[in-house]
């Protein structure tokens, strides 16, 4: 399988093609079988590849396969190939494995949707582009995958296109991601200019033997970070993720929790030799990650929409990962990615079960008392909550502890403090959500249905089990399976030293404090939302600030949109036409205003056109006569 990893890559594409070409002849069952089947097969293939790779000596654990030459022209030589090494394999396992479960879940969740086949065509397409992203062996094809997942995400966020909010959210997500794409594109460009290659192997090799100027390396790493920030919904390009919850819930689970949003983590981990060469870039990564982790955690405490609260949590958890890879703790970051994929997908699926049962209701204030009505979901959600909160024995505890402990070991006290504070908040908002949904009495209007069909429950339960036991891959002081698995990938080039923590060096202080804080978070949430002993939200200003997500959308409106509009007005444009909406879409609109200022060129009158041409000719003449 290792030598034929293209099969893994192409399977989901085949699924997309079959469903979109033969769609109208396929029954729903056949569509489901095809869509889930290709991803399942891809998963089996990935497992086989992983087993094979483990059998190889560490030195050889990076299998490249050149599929075709892309551009061969003079000095330009770019081919397309696949790279299978522990890093990509870890991602492939999650993409296909968790992806498979979510495909199965979707069969139930989307069962009644009129665009059932289109949905699966998109979902398979997403799996393909995501695999392309992690399997490509050079930067250019990484970008192709990078853009591709953005497109698939766009299609799926806006899947319920009858809702204007869904379409708007899709566009916002796409636009913000395009900003990131441009960043990566520029980074690739600089990489090519510096090393005359875009292949990972060559670039990482040359980065040491023929180092580029420090400034260039910083620029490259910061531009890559821009891409990572946009895709992984980190500060300051995070606002799209909340709106992305307009998409179907399985999509949120797959794309906006488990896989796509972690592409930023992959990117930094993949480019570790470059970040090693640019301490500035690496520091920026860590700071952005830490800040996002804390900020998103505070946002999570005030959300009333269950999916948006989970989105805040995703942003926060990815913040941890980004912080970890920024600090060079690659194994810890990727371990957290793995456990997060389990418990966050689980939480979204459980949330999906709730939404399913409540006929589309997502407002936490209109839930409550669901424990008895949805017992499986209740237990699953509890497992996920315990895992993410870092309660000892559950997966999140192990990965978060590994991450925070190493941070403290390396002396990054501030970032450690940030991480621990976020851990407290995480426990608080997760149990808040949990109690709001499941304890007390039902506050909604619609009569809740019972538990979801089995096709949805089984994947939920499987993930619940994984969320509980997934952490034992790394048992502090005993073994470090993840570290052992990943270690070869970080031994090929410089900069990998320290990527894998020492399993026998456990920081009991950090562990103790974070566990205490997690329990404290649980305690506060218990007092406020379960026993109702304390009044919630004592500070209206603060809760409003958090609910509004620190007014980022409004800030973008004020900083980018309005000045651009004003600038446009200077150009004589019609500013009143500009309906101001939040986010970066407004930026585009501002640029358009500039364009409106040029309209005078296109008056429609032949004589005016002739005048423009004559004046242009005079300008060129003047240049030639006087200056050339």
């Amino acid at each position: 399988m290792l030598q034929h990893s293209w099969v893994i890559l192409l399977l989901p594409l085949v699924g997309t093609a079959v469903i979109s070409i033969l769609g109208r002849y396929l029954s729903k069952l056949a569509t489901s079988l095809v869509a889930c089947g290709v991803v399942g097969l891809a998963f089996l293939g990935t497992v086989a590849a992983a087993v094979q790779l483990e059998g190889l000596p560490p030195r050889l654990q990076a299998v490249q396969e050149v599929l075709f030459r892309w551009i061969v022209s003079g000095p330009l030589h770019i081919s397309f190939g696949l790279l299978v090494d522990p890093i990509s394999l870890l991602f492939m396992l999650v993409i296909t494995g968790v992806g498979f479960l979510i495909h199965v879940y979707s069969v139930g969740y989307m069962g009644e949707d009129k665009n059932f086949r289109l949905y699966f065509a998109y979902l398979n397409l997403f799996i393909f582009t995501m695999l392309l992203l992690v399997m490509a062996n050079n930067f250019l094809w990484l970008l192709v995958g990078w853009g591709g997942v953005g497109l698939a995400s766009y299609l799926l966020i806006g899947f319920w296109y009858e809702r204007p909010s869904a379409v708007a959210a899709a566009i916002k997500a796409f636009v913000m991601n395009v900003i990131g794409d441009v960043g990566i594109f520029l980074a690739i460009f600089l990489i090519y200019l510096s090393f005359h290659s875009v292949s990972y192997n060559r670039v990482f090799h040359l980065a040491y033997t023929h180092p580029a100027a420090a400034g260039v390396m910083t620029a490259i790493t910061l531009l890559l970070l821009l891409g990572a920030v946009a895709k992984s919904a980190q500060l300051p390009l995070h606002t799209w993720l909340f709106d992305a919850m307009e998409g179907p819930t399985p999509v949120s689970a797959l794309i906006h929790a488990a896989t796509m949003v972690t592409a930023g983590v992959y990117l930094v981990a993949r480019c570790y030799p470059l970040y090693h060469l640019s301490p500035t870039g690496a520091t920026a990564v860590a700071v952005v990650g830490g800040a996002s982790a804390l900020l998103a955690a505070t946002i999570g405490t005030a959300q009333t929409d269950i999916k948006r609260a989970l989105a805040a949590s995703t942003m926060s958890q990815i913040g941890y990962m980004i912080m970890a890879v920024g600090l060079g703790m690659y194994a810890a970051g990727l371990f957290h990615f793995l456990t997060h994929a389990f418990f966050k997908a689980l939480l979204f699926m459980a949330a999906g079960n709730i939404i399913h049962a409540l006929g589309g209701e997502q407002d936490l204030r209109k839930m409550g008392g669901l424990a008895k009505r949805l017992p499986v979901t209740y237990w699953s959600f509890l497992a996920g909550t315990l895992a993410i909160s870092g309660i000892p024995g559950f997966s999140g505890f192990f990965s978060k502890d590994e991450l925070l402990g190493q941070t403290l070991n390396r002396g990054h006290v501030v970032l450690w403090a940030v991480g621990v504070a976020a851990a407290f908040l995480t426990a608080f908002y997760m149990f808040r959500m949990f109690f709001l949904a499941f304890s007390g009495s039902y506050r909604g209007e619609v009569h809740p249905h019972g538990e979801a069909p089995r096709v949805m429950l089984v994947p939920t339960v499987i993930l619940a089990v994984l969320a509980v036991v997934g952490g034992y891959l790394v048992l502090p002081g005993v073994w470090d399976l993840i570290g052992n698995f990943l270690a070869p990938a970080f031994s090929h080039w410089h900069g990998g030293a320290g990527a894998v923590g020492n399993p026998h060096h456990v920081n009991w202080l950090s562990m103790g404090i974070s566990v205490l804080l997690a329990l404290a978070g649980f305690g506060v949430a218990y007092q406020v939302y379960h026993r109702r002993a304390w009044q919630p939200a004592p500070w209206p200003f603060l809760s409003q600030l958090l609910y509004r997500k620190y007014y980022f959308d409004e800030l973008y409106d004020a900083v980018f949109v309005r000045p651009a509009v004003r600038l446009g007005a200077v150009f004589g444009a019609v500013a009143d036409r500009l309906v101001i909406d939040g986010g970066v879409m407004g930026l585009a609109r501002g640029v358009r205003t500039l364009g409106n200022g040029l309209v005078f060129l296109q008056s429609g009158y032949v004589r005016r056109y002739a005048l423009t041409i004559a004046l242009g000719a005079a300008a060129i003449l003047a240049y030639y006569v006087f200056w050339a």
Partner: protein
Amino acid sequence: MHIPAVYDVNLSIVSPELALGLVGVLVLILDLFLRDEEARWLVVPSIAGVVLSGVYAAGLWGQAATAFHGAVVVDPFSLGFDFLFLTVILLTLLLSLRLPKLSSGHFALLLWAGTGMMLLAAASSLMTLFLGVELLSISLYLLVALAPGNAAAGEAALKYFILGAFATGFLLLGIAFLYGSTGAVTLFGIQKALSGGALNLPHAFTFLKVGLALFLVGLGFKLALVPFQVWVPDVYQGAPTPITAFMSVGTKAAAFAALLRSLYGIIPPGGWIPALTVLAVATLLVGSLLILRQTNLKRLLAYSGIVNAGYLLVALVSFGLVPAAYYLAAYTFMNLGAFAGIAALSKDAEEGAELPAYRGLAYRRPWLGASLAFLFLSLASIPPTGGFTGKFLILLSAVASNHAYLAVILVAATAISLFAYLRVVVALFTPAEEAGLAPRPLPAGAVVVVGIGVLGVLATGILPHLFLIPISSMTHLFTISPVP
């Protein structure tokens, strides 16, 4: 028959042009025997003419020679462009079947316009260049106007004609001054004069500068460079869609080929790089800023054509011949494909280019909608499309020749215009209540062109070296052949 050397006749060198032009005459004669409604069958001999011309061009591949005392040249460069033009003509012929009423003369004029394009690529004398421009332009004026009862087409034709003739005045004056300063009208003669000290006279140098300036104005008009782009949106919008498609690619490529051949190796780079750099910047910025507000698809593509002229110019000033040619190939597919999509959907190929009408197309006609979306994504240069690859190559050549700031502006223009294209893609995937714009059955010719466009964009995006191999050989052999 013995032809004395003084004639320097070598018809084989112009056989591709001659074949196309003469088949045009033949089509015209056949037209006399057909009733009006049978006129569309003339597409068959027209296609045969294109194929014949292509066969002749293929037969000449590898040669590099001039004839008629330096009036024309054949080299891989001209032949490569010939193949591009023939592709454009072929696709336009298929697309023309979509027109509600095919005037007799339509096909002949198309073939003659194509002949003019091929002459431009092969022109090694300013006389041939002028005549090529005029053959192309006059045919196009008429093709734009040949839409009975279509007021917009009439307006477009008149604007195009008056401004075209006006700009040709500048071109002619430029040529006159070039002639006055060098005493030659062939490119080889001009080059010889410039390197042989003909400019020692002070006035000769002034004449050369004036001539060059006006020459750039004249060709800048055809290439749609800012500020000579003003006619483009109106004319593209008003003209019958197949003709717009033809113009958008063909005229641009032909003017580009002519400009390139008259500058490279003839005029010292210092004489034209600064001016063209400024024009490139203006074109990129103005084009991309104005494209943002477009809601008419034909007009949007017109601005797209302006921005793309900017890309070509960047390639030109950075001596990126291969990227330019590659980009033109990719552009041919995506642009003709997009126009074909518009032509296929509009009721009579004249109307229905307004954006709202395209809402939800991807749901009503999934294949066509997705194809159009793909073509627009290529225009937006999203990888892995041909639009991306081509721009990537141009960008590399710009940086390699130390025009980094041009590369930055190119990226900025691409990023700005991205939104305009994405708006179309978004519209295609936005649901709409009323089901406008989806004729059944779809016109076959236009659909075929859309399909070819999609395949071409895919091929240029994913397998660029398939195109780069012939293109590099075409540019390796680019020479100014001396007069024998």
